[in-house]
């Protein structure tokens, strides 16, 4: 990330995010959708592309993440590591991409296992390393 362009318009950042999501889709079977976004809610990359119900996922994830951070701050319990919404027919997992102003959000079908969440974490870590060292 060079900082010259906003991340969502920086071709190097976008292509790294696209590759990271494709890699995640290959190893995480319950993955229904995933998105890399800036902390302030701009979409950098998303799979599947163009699905209308995920159009607002970046801005919703950004708001959710910030509210979770506010709760963690209020309770003085360290830093927010990841956020899980466990719904009756699926789940949403959101976590930061290293120390970058970016996050990775995954929508999972019901029946996901802890290994799937671990894959999402590993994908975010790998993307953070890639973006730190252009």
């Amino acid at each position: 990330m060079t900082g010259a362009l906003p991340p969502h318009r920086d071709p190097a950042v976008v292509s790294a995010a696209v590759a990271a999501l494709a890699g995640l889709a290959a190893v995480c079977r319950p993955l229904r959708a995933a998105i890399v976004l800036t902390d302030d809610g701009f979409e950098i990359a998303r799979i599947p592309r163009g699905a209308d119900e995920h159009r607002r996922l970046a801005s919703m994830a950004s708001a959710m993440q910030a509210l979770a951070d506010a709760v963690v701050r209020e309770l003085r319990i360290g830093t927010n590591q990841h956020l899980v919404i466990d719904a009756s027919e699926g789940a949403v997992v959101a976590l930061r991409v290293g120390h970058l102003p970016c996050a990775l959000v995954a929508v999972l079908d019901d029946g996901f296992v802890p290994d799937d969440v671990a894959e999402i974490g590993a994908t975010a870590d790998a993307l953070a390393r890639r973006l730190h060292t252009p």
Partner: protein
Amino acid sequence: MPEHVILFAGPMGAGKTTAIRTLSEIDVVSTEAANTDRLQADKDTTTVALDYGEIAVGLDDKIRLYGVPGQSRFDFMWTILQQRAMGLMLLIHADAPNPVVAVGDQLGAFLDLANRGGLVIGITRSELGPRDVVDRVRTVASALLPERSIPVFAVDARDYEQMRTMLMALISDVEERAEMMRASR
């Protein structure tokens, strides 16, 4: 006076977060994220969910202050926060690209609240914009809501006394409006 819920709306950079921090008597709950798009507004952070502050009134009543994110990609928060509010504090910065268009857009987005609750408009950063912004905003606001007389203030969101005066004008509009709604039922 019963508990009041006031919503601060307006475009990014209008001073919503600043105004709530100026007015609140508690540490505000804020949801700022790094602003990655400096072309929109040249500031370090931007609100992505809400701001929340409180002012005590008497012994057990309070005014709750909610601020929305200014950018339309967060409009789902506008819907959520608008539902509980009884008054709208609309802030527009005088140095916005087109403050008059912004007033129309914002009144459109928060029309439900503007129609049923109190409404005041504050023009912030007025020393940085054209001189006639307050007058032009007043004209467009009364054209858009002809049956209302909408107070339009020039305010500095960083100034406690100015914000407090504007908030109190809004609270009396909220109460007047509630009285009218009761009478018409």
